[in-house]
């Protein structure tokens, strides 16, 4: 039994939590989310390089919440999601345990302060490769960028898988569903697709923790992560603000500094 399985078994057996949300093996051996509610099933848990999903998305589901206190197997982005959800008043202190798998032992984080401390020791910046890709893309001409995105968005099906995969898209009524007024056209045509994706990116500005699940979920492979990373980068360079590093932080777009740059305003 792995250390992770052992820890899960122990937590369930002692009733410290009612459910352990982690990764298991699905059809074809792919990693998928599992909800372990009995100590005897702890052996179903796995953790390896294929376990990428941000499981914090389940914390916002009412049917998962009903199961009781959860222990969540986390990746770095998951921890940042938890903090961001806390900052957005979506999860309460002491409502969950975070299980950080590592080679030696399982680190158990029980409080937001502990998660904050753990996250502080991680590098929350975009990776060098991510920065380089952004740089490369930004260096393209305006028309090239436009053509790129037109081609990408022309494939968008408006299936909203990106939204479903995103742990921060927890709104009960998304603006795309507003029809008074109809902000986003219903059919999946070029204009509606662009507006939908611009809107989603803007709504995640200063909130997205760059977990990448939207891109992984997209059935037509639109590189949505580029949009999010662009905003992560702009929000950090412009306002020195980073999401998901504190359980008590204001949003970059609902705060301001009197000396924010305004070289584009005449």
């Amino acid at each position, binding site marked *: 039994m792995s250390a992770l399985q052992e820890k899960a078994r122990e937590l369930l057996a002692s009733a410290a939590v009612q459910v352990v949300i982690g990764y298991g093996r699905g059809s074809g051996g792919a990693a998928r989310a599992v909800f372990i509610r009995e100590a005897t099933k702890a052996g179903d848990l796995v953790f390896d390089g294929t376990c990428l999903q941000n499981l914090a998305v389940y914390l916002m589901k009412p049917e998962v919440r009903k199961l009781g206190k959860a222990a969540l197997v986390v990746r770095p982005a998951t921890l940042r999601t938890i903090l961001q959800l806390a900052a957005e008043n979506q999860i309460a202190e002491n409502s969950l345990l975070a299980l950080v798998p590592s080679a030696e032992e399982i680190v158990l984080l029980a409080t937001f302060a502990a998660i904050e401390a753990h996250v502080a020791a991680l590098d929350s910046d975009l990776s060098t490769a991510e920065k380089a890709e952004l740089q490369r*893309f*930004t260096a393209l001409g*305006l*028309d*090239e*960028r*436009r*053509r*790129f*995105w*037109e081609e990408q968005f022309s494939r968008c099906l408006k299936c909203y898988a990106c939204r479903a995969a995103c742990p921060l898209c927890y709104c009960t009524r998304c*603006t795309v569903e507003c029809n008074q007024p109809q*902000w986003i056209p219903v059919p999946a*045509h*070029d*204009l509606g697709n*662009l*507006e939908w994706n*611009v*809107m989603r*990116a*803007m709504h995640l*500005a*200063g909130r997205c923790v760059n977990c990448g699940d939207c891109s992984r979920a997209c059935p037509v492979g639109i590189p949505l992560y*580029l*949009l999010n990373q*662009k*905003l992560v980068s*702009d*929000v950090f360079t*412009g*306002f020195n603000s980073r999401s998901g590093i504190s359980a008590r932080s204001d949003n*970059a*777009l*609902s*705060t*301001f*500094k*009197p000396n*924010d*740059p*305004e070289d*584009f*305003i*005449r």
Partner: protein
Amino acid sequence: MPDFEPKIVAFVCNWCTYAGADLTGTSRMKYSPQVAIIRFPCTGRIDFMLLLKAFASGADGIIVSGCHPNDCHYSSGNFHARRRWIVFRGLLDFLGIDVRRVQFSWVSAAEGAKWAQLVNETAEHIRGLGPFTGYQRLRGLGVE
């Protein structure tokens, strides 16, 4: 396109720029009739979605204008708006949408002349850029 007259929508706050544009009128200064104003209580109220809607509805250019920093009637609405525009502008540019078509400005209630100049120069500028067919094409109107 020698006959092209751009359609420009101006999103302005009630307290500074709307009043500044009133002053342009009371001072009888002339400017291009290609711009029409929509009044908001504050630049803080101006939703980025409305800018998208304006382009989608055929605007060739957009002016967004409010009170100068520290002059906001609501003290900080314009500061919040400024942050929103910084991010939104960066995103549009990233998507290959020409941000030169959105002119942000601070025009106070005393700057009637600045308003006239802003409209004229923006109209001239948009005239130079031509109709925003790249965007209007998206809604399938077949402008091209």
